[in-house]
C-alpha cells in the first residue's frame, strides 16, 4: 500500500500498483497532459519528462490545469 497527494487530496494505491510514472498518473486521472503544469514536491516537471518521472509513495503532486479562452 502507498499514498500520494494530488492537489492536497490523498490517493491510495495497492503495493503492486507502484511504480508508475507521471504520464500514467495523468491517464488514470483522465487529465490531458498537453494542458497541465505539474509540480512534484514543489519542483516543476517539464512536460517532455512526464513519462520518465516516477511517482513514489509519499509524493505530493500539484497539477495546474488550463482550460481554453482568453
Amino acid at each position, binding site marked *: 500500500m502507498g499514498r500520494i497527494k494530488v492537489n492536497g487530496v490523498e490517493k491510495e494505491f495497492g503495493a503492486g500498483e507502484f511504480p508508475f510514472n507521471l504520464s500514467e498518473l495523468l491517464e488514470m486521472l483522465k487529465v490531458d497532459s498537453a494542458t*497541465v503544469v505539474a509540480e512534484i514536491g514543489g519542483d516543476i516537471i517539464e512536460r517532455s519528462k512526464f513519462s520518465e518521472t516516477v511517482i513514489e509513495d509519499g509524493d505530493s503532486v500539484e497539477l495546474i490545469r488550463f482550460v481554453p479562452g482568453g
Partner: protein
Amino acid sequence: MNKVYEKLSKTVVGIAGTGGLGSNVAAALVRNGIGKLIIVDFDVVSEDNLNRQFYFFDQVGRVKVEALTENLERINVGVNIEAINIRLDRENIEGIFSEADIIAECFDDAEQKQILVETVLSRMGDKYVVSASGLAGYGRGNEIVTKRISERLIVVGDGYSGIDTEKVLTAGRVGIAACHQANAIVELIVDEM
C-alpha cells in the same frame, strides 16, 4: 512620488497574447503608470475580437501589437511599449521576456498557456507568472478568483469554464479575469518587489 507609483514606474511587465485578456491587462497597467510593457502576439484584429478586446472597428485587419500600441499611447502618450509581432514558443519565450519582472499569460489556447507557464517556472528562475484559466461564458462573476498557486505562480479564473464547453466569451467575464490579473500584478509589484 507616491511609493506605489514609484514602484510601478520601475517595473517591466511582459504580456503574452494581446486578445481579450492581454489587451485589457495592458490598458489597466498603462493607466497605473507601469514602467514598460513588452507586448507579444502574432495575430491581426478581426471583427469578432471587438466583443471583448481593446481594439476599435477601424483597426480590423491591423497587426494586433501595433494597433494596441497606438491605443495605449492614447491613454499615456509617453508610455514605453516594446511591440513584438511573433508567435511565442518554447524556444523564444526566454529571450523575448528576459527583461520582464512579471509575465502575464494571456493566451486563448490551453496548450499555449501550458507552454508559457511551464517555461517561466522551469527556466526563468526570478520571474513571476500571472496566468488565467476558466473565464468563458457569462455570469458567475464571483466565481472568478485570484489564487496564489506557488511562490512565482498566480492563476485567476474559475478553473473550469473553457470556450470548448461554454461556447461564448463575453466582455464582462473576460474583463473580470483581466482585471484580476492586472490587480494581482500591481499587488506583486508593490508588496513583493
